[in-house]
């Protein structure tokens, strides 16, 4: 049953994504509004699924990587809906919704046995939630970085086209970039700490140097440097945009690490 609802959500997100991508090339605002409707409906169903999964309880501590990604996707959609509600910033969705859609698609594609953590650590959902909230922050930073670089390029090459007209000012994108990192970083820090604690309980060591942990630490250090760079040596504007785009690759590699770890430590007990 849950699967059907998730597929329904996917369908709505797909339509929303498609419409928002077409919206980039069209002058009509109607497209964006229809896309918003689609995404809204999708998000409502998605919320229902998530609530059901939490309330039904049986899997509460057996947080799979799938449900983590599902939560990540849901949070991105919520950020987009908030941005539209506050700033009427539909164009953010054209860049962000594809990411949310892909995240949700990957839950369907990934082998269902991929498990984030050993069920022995009962509070594992805290680790997953915190890490995912951190990731959402970096994802928003990534999206704003991509938008910044696009707009920068359009301005530099004097292409005053529809995309140029729709993208927000550079200054706004730079601030969005900075704030989302600032928000995401503490979550990731706490996510890593709780993760280390769960590893200690499960494997008897805080750090086992698997690819997930290595990439998580690299990513964490990278964003720390990016944040410090802004205040100490002026890594802002274009440079910050580049760095956050690169940093997000680290996030994706961490995800990959999780999947690989799941395969190397099949939990069959």
């Amino acid at each position, binding site marked *: 049953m849950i699967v059907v609802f998730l597929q329904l959500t996917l369908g709505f997100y797909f339509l929303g994504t498609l419409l928002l991508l077409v919206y980039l090339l069209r002058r009509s605002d109607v497209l964006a509004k229809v896309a918003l409707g689609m995404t809204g409906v999708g998000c409502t169903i998605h919320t229902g699924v998530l609530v059901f999964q939490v309330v039904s309880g049986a899997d509460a501590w057996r947080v799979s990587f799938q449900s983590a990604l599902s939560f990540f996707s849901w949070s991105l959609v919520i950020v987009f809906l908030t941005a539209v509600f506050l700033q009427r910033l539909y164009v953010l969705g054209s860049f962000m919704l594809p990411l949310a859609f892909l995240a949700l698609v990957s839950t369907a594609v990934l082998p269902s046995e991929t498990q984030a953590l050993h069920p022995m650590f009962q509070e594992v959902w805290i680790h997953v939630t915190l890490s995912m909230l951190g990731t959402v922050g970096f994802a928003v930073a990534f999206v704003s970085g991509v938008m910044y670089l696009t707009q920068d390029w359009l301005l530099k090459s004097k292409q*005053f086209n529809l995309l140029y007209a729709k993208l927000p000012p550079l*200054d706004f994108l730079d601030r969005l970039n900075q704030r989302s990192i600032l928000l995401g970083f503490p979550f990731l820090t706490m996510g890593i700490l709780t993760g280390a604690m769960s590893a200690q309980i499960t494997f008897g060591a805080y750090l086992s140097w698997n690819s997930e942990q290595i990439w998580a630490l690299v990513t964490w250090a990278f964003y720390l440097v990016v944040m410090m760079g802004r205040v100490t040596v*002026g890594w802002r504007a*274009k*440079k910050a945009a580049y760095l956050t785009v690169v940093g997000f690759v680290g996030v994706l590699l961490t995800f990959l690490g999780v999947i690989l770890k799941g395969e190397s430590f099949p939990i069959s007990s």
Partner: protein
Amino acid sequence: MNVIVVGLSHKTAPVKLRELLMVPDSRIGEAVKRLMAHPSIHEGVFLQTCNRVEVYAVTDHADDGFSGVQEFLVDTHLSLSAEQLLPHLYWHAGDRAITHLFRVASSLDSLVVGEPQILGQVKECFMDASTHDASGVILNKVFQKAISVAKRVRTETRIAENAVSVSYAAVELAKKVFGNLSEQTVMLVGAGEMAKLAAQHLVADGVQQVFLTTRDSLRARDMADRFHGTPMPFEKFRTYLYKADIVLCSTGAPHYVIGPEDVERAVRERWNRPIFLIDVAVPRNIDPAVRQVDNAFLFDMDDLEKCVERNRDERRKEAVRAERIVQDEVGIMLRWMQALKATPVIIALRKHAEDIKHAELQKVFGRLGMLTPEQREAMEHLASGIIKKLLHGPFVALKDAAQMSNGSMYIEAARHFYDLEKHLVAKDSVDVRGPVDRKPSGGDGLPSASAPESAREKVSE
């Protein structure tokens, strides 16, 4: 009853002819009175802007109205002859006249399509006409509709959204970099007109701090007064370049005054905060190599022109949507005017019924002798009730019929059935002049006091 327009605009007449027809504000009243003196013109509005002079009028026959307005225009200036004027005039009647007004008010007929001033000018001229009691039921309705159509076009299309002047394009570009301009600082290098114009737009859009520098320190002080800015010695401005978010450059120098190394240093000192440079000088004052500097955005005249050209294209596309809105609204307006045709018959029919009621009541009162006031009132009430109920159907039918193509047949039939000819003859003048809003002028030609007030209220909503 016809709405007509006769006039000339930037599209049909050179400025030297248009300026001859312009009436100074102080003599508008006189001109309007002269227009209204023509026997064939029942209502009139005299519209003049720097790009057009037009007369809108309501007449019984379009051709009489055309010649009346033509005479009026020729008489406007002593040195004008009909031969001189006629080739430049356009004449429209009925739906085409209304379409024309709606297009003018919506700025679809303007030199710069989408410019905002025209609506204000239309309002003003309409108010002048109301003040001088020249517009009546029909033109009041038509002009109020024109104003609301213009507002609808403004809100539903993007016709007025983008800059179509080079100086304003600079502001638009600055907003794409900085978003809010109120926290930004502008540096004006040189005293070229275009740069000053752009600076003025920037200040109007919220820029608080302006630095100025020219070789001529006296001029710098002059400009500092104009923009409430801080003058800066020309020799040192490169050192302070980092303080500026927006640099407007327009000196008379035949060489580059800002090079890539200046901008690179400024960006470094700004900790990579973007800097926005506009070079409106020809020959150029900022080395094009500045384009290669990260976080520096340089735009020269050609870039701004390109931006404006794109916006003009955009406006042309939006204008197509606006034309559709205008067509819709003209349709609504025409239906209203059609319905107006039934008005004289309805008034006559009501008058006819009232006359009968009055006569019959007098007869009955005479026959019955002494009646208490209550009894009289009850009888009057009864008679009125019967009339009202009986006529409600025909009134609705007539109003509906008037909007149909064969409406005049129904109206003719009503005249015939109820034998309304004598009432209609008596009422004809009311129909022509407008039965409700129009108040007769005093013998001395002074307009009645209340008419302009009511018109003003309607306009300012």
